[in-house]
């Protein structure tokens, strides 16, 4: 009994293990499995974060409900918590940063990829990558000691004089506030936009460019009407990467924003962001409700990033469908 069975066993299935072995040797199975694990680990980490934030914020979710999003008192003593000024501050500083960094970054990327001599382009790109690696606390310190006085004495008065009719540029000027935080953020995110956009522009196939030139386009027309649209998706990607960094930035922002949870129309006014208040108050938050309020702010920031990323995806989808070029 035993002998035939073992013979059958030995005779029939060998092809399966051997095939598996062959596939393993070629690396397909291993690669498939490994990359699958890596990819799912990202989803796992994300869900664990959301789960933890959700569990550890139940006190404030029960106590304040949706009011948490729409009230603006932040009082650890009397335990009243509202996230609105922080949401506002996060969105405004990121918007200011993008307003400055996007034209600057894309312009620089176009110059480096299309117009500059390759040697110059490479060395500048090296400096830009260096800039991206500077720790944010350094930007914060430079911000408070160098940028803040300049903003207060020069830039803000100039803006008030020229654009003072807009509510954005009115009110007392402290040097710290939304505008200064936005400027520091812009400096921090511009290397991301330049670096990624430059790579994307360099990756546009040469025949696209040559075809445009052959049709009689000038060099600038070829760049602006053919190369840039071709690279649009990648450039958008770089902008949203930069936006994500701006939304989550903590140290540099807290040093120059004034840390006052108020909603003001003026960009000169001090404000506060979600990431900053969490970093500032987490370690000394003694009461449970207080701690849960800070954790719920983390959840809000997560949600905000999620929504903005979703909108970004939609924007990319919409623009690539309208345009004829697929990168």
């Amino acid at each position, binding site marked *: 009994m035993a002998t035939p069975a073992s013979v059958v066993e030995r005779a029939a299935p060998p092809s399966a293990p051997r095939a598996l072995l062959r596939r393993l040797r070629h690396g397909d199975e291993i690669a498939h499995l490994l990359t699958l694990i890596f990819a799912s680990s990202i989803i796992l980490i994300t869900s664990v974060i959301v789960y933890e934030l959700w569990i550890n914020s139940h006190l404030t979710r029960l106590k304040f409900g949706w009011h948490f999003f729409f009230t603006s*008192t932040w009082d*650890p*003593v*009397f335990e009243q918590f509202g996230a609105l000024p922080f949401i506002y501050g996060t969105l405004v500083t990121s918007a200011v940063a993008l307003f400055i960094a996007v034209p600057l970054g894309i312009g620089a990327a176009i110059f480096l990829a299309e117009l500059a001599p390759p040697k110059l382009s490479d060395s500048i790109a090296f400096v830009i990558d260096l800039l991206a690696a500077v720790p944010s606390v350094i930007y914060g310190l430079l911000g*408070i000691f160098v940028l*803040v006085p300049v903003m207060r004495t020069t830039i803000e008065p100039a803006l008030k004089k020229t654009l003072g009719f807009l509510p954005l540029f009115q009110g007392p000027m402290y040097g710290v506030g939304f505008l200064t935080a936005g400027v520091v953020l812009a400096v921090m995110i511009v290397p991301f936009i330049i670096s990624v956009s430059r790579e994307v522009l360099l990756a546009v196939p040469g025949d696209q460019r040559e075809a445009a030139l052959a049709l009689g386009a000038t060099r600038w027309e070829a760049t602006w009407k053919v190369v840039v649209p071709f690279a649009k998706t990648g450039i958008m990607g770089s902008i949203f990467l930069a936006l994500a960094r701006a939304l989550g930035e903590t140290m540099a922002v807290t040093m120059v924003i004034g840390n*006052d949870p108020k909603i003001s129309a003026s960009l000169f006014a001090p404000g506060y962001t979600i990431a*900053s208040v969490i970093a500032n108050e987490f*370690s000394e938050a003694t009461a449970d409700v207080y701690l849960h309020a800070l954790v719920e702010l983390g959840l809000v920031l997560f949600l905000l990033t999620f929504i903005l990323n979703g909108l970004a995806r939609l924007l990319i989808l919409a623009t690539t469908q309208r345009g004829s070029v697929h990168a």
Partner: protein
Amino acid sequence: MKKTLLVALLLLFVGSLHAQSGQVLLNAAGATFPYPIYSKWFDEYHKLHPNIQINYASVGSGAGIRQVLAGTVDFGASDGPMSDEQLAQAKMKILHFPTVLGAAVPSYNIPGVNAELNFTPQALAGIYLGTITKWNDPAITSANPGVNLPGNDILVVHRSDGSGTTYIWTDYLSKVSDAWKNKVGRNTSVNWPTGLGGKGNEGVTGLIQQTPNSIGYVELIYALQNHLPYGKVKNAAGTFVKADLAGVSAAAAGAAKDMPADFRVSITNAPGKTAYPISSFTWLLIPTQIQDATKREVIKGFLHWMMTDGQNFAEGLSYARLPRPVVEKETKAISLIQ
């Protein structure tokens, strides 16, 4: 020759084995304000007793309290005493041991004014409540005869990060002003009626130095070490006192008479002619029941040393030392640890 070497090696091995088995490792976590002196103490104590190693994580008072409650550290440290609700959460009784003292001082930057300003409690409370908005307000000028104060708007600066310094400052304002107590209260972070927030002492100092007509509060240690100018504050006895280590210890001595048994006492606005009114203890949080007998003895031994020889390190690091009567009371409390 060979034999002696062997014996020596063997002895060395046994010796190291012994040291390893007698090694006591304690973990502590909490307040950042006393971190410089705590790390000095734990280091010096390790030199005296090489088998004892105390690791201290300066994660903040809030985290220190939570970790003691959760039992994840052997003891904690906090700049503010634990609340009754927090103590009720604890599985066992937790004792407060004052270690050193700190203080908060008002620092300011008014162009053209180099004189040392006097601040009454009413002036400080009014400025921080936003009811006193100009430097030439009578509440400020009346305490500073002969100083020509400008009519500029006061820019108030406070800490943006939760901190023991903010606790001392708001505790003091709560004691001297009912309006402050009812509207704002005391905590490591509060809902500030007015002003800008700077991160850390350095952030507050940066804002003060760069913004004309500003006022802010910083730790006394930070002001001393960085030679910042700061004003005098009127104490409960009615004298204007410029903060120094002796004045802070005097405040503690003044409060020692009415010291509660659990040492959870606020010494802001303390009586005494020389007492600096914006002072506070910082505490170690020690569980009363420690299962591990060696750990218990080590903690008790360390507390004894901290109150005696350890205090000699305080002034070198700009902390005010514990006054004699407080040390005596604390020494008695050590026997409560079982």
